[in-house]
């Protein structure tokens, strides 16, 4: 049996190259914050970030200059408001210009599903009567060969690397997750490489019947990382820190304050445990 267990640092260094197309997926739940921080620490540049709901971790990566392009469908701080670093990049090109490939949730979900299925495009009843196709040439149309009906088409999404967080993995690389799963399975199957951080690594996962498992042969590396989704949450492990999401609005509002916070808590921390400890000092 080949072990897929790696340190997070090794997994990122091996699979995430400058210029890569990278999807850190997670829909409110199981957002891979620790992996995003490690990408920032390793100084990756010109990433094409993909995500349905770029939230705080993408705000941080964009503000730290990791990204040059963003494929997305909703970019905000859920329940709070704007992502100030994303806005600054789009409105004022700071710290660098950010090209937008903007879709709807239905469009990105269909594009991941097509990517997972090995198809070059997805068909949907989408984008009807809106201005989105006029600002995104990657939204096209296809005619049904049976009814003649015109439908929307989007190109499949196949990230070079998808990064997820989950509850458990075994050494072989099988990953088990439960709770709200967003489009994570589709983003995983669509990826050329797949890194998963988990709360816990066990010798062997039990048979899961209809439970959600990412099978080991689609997984490139698993890294244990307790608290790796904080400040988002992990069902049956820890709750979402809604207060942090609210505080982020202030932290990220100005460039200087943002940089100071990132330096102190992310760059000055060796790893995620140190990051969490640095937040305890503040609290």
């Amino acid at each position: 049996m080949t072990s897929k267990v790696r340190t997070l640092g090794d997994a990122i260094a091996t699979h995430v190259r400058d210029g890569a197309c990278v999807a850190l997926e997670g829909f409110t739940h199981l957002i891979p914050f620790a992996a995003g921080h490690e990408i920032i620490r390793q100084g990756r540049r010109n990433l094409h970030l993909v995500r349905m709901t770029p939230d705080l971790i993408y705000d941080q990566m964009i503000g730290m200059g990791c990204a040059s392009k963003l494929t997305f469908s909703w970019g905000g701080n859920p329940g709070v408001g704007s992502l100030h670093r994303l806005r600054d990049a789009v409105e004022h090109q700071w710290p660098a210009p950010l090209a937008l490939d903007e879709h709807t949730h239905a469009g990105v979900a269909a594009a991941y599903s097509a990517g997972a299925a090995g198809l070059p495009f997805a068909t949907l009843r989408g984008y009807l009567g809106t201005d989105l196709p006029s600002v995104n040439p990657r939204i096209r149309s296809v005619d049904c060969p049976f009814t003649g009906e015109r439908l929307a088409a989007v190109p499949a999404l196949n990230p070079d690397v998808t990064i997820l967080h989950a509850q458990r993995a075994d050494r072989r690389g099988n990953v088990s997750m439960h709770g709200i799963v967003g489009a994570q399975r589709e983003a995983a199957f669509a990826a050329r490489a797949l890194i998963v951080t988990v709360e816990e690594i066990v010798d062997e996962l039990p048979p899961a019947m209809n439970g959600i498992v990412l099978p080991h042969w689609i997984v490139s590396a698993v890294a244990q990382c307790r608290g790796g989704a904080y400040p988002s949450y992990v069902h049956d492990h820890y709750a979402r820190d809604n207060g942090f999401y609210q505080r982020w609005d202030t932290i990220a509002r100005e460039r200087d304050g943002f940089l100071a916070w990132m330096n102190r808590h992310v760059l000055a921390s060796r790893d995620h445990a140190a990051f969490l400890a640095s937040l305890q000092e503040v609290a």
Partner: protein
Amino acid sequence: MSDWTREEMMTVAAARQLWDGCVCFVGIGLPSAACNLARLTHAPDVVLIYESGTLGTRPDVLPLSIGDGELADTAACVIPLPEVFSYLLQAGRVDVGFLGAAQVDRYGNLNSTVIGPYDAPRTRLPGAGGATEIAAHARQTFVMLKATPRSLVAQLDFCTSAGFLAGNGARARTTMRGAGPQTVITDYGVLKPLPETDELHLSALFNGVTVDEARAATGWPLKVAESVDTLTPPTPIELETLRALHARTREAHRRPVRLPA
């Protein structure tokens, strides 16, 4: 209990639009409060679907995000997000979708993308999310937003989600299956589309609000129904239930979160 805020009245007005057993696609904020108020009062069997894939969820407190853990714990089941948009919305399996927006025009078209030009925005907004396809495919939609001449506008900066397009039956001539925005709930009253032109007109006012106030808060020359209804103020039960829900929610969200160790 006789005092109520405009926001409470918006929530109550929206809740009353829901019928028992209806399948409802819920957004965070006012729609979430309205849908749960309906569930806790006249519509115990309303089916609440949050975008995160939680179907038939029955939270005890209002979620702060669309994917709070309690939504999953109390849901009939949790499904992957692609299925929410394909098997439920696109397939026409949702009765009511709730939408908010930064701007709505007189035909119920919505903007949640940018203020200013797309390529050089004055304000970059979060974007479409699920709204575009909710607007297209839910059997009908309810729009909730606070009225100002900058939110109820003559001309959208960007069309994120289709209402009645240019009106006069334009939407009905597309392949969109949903009937579009049947009710717009503002903080002065309710707008509804006119039968022929699809133009939103003033259908009902909150108790204590005048037509002039409604007109002043609307960025286009607002048409007014021949007889404008006045909405019944929140009943004691509605108000008590809503305030208790908010109190439970504040209490739950005040509990400190421990960092994972």
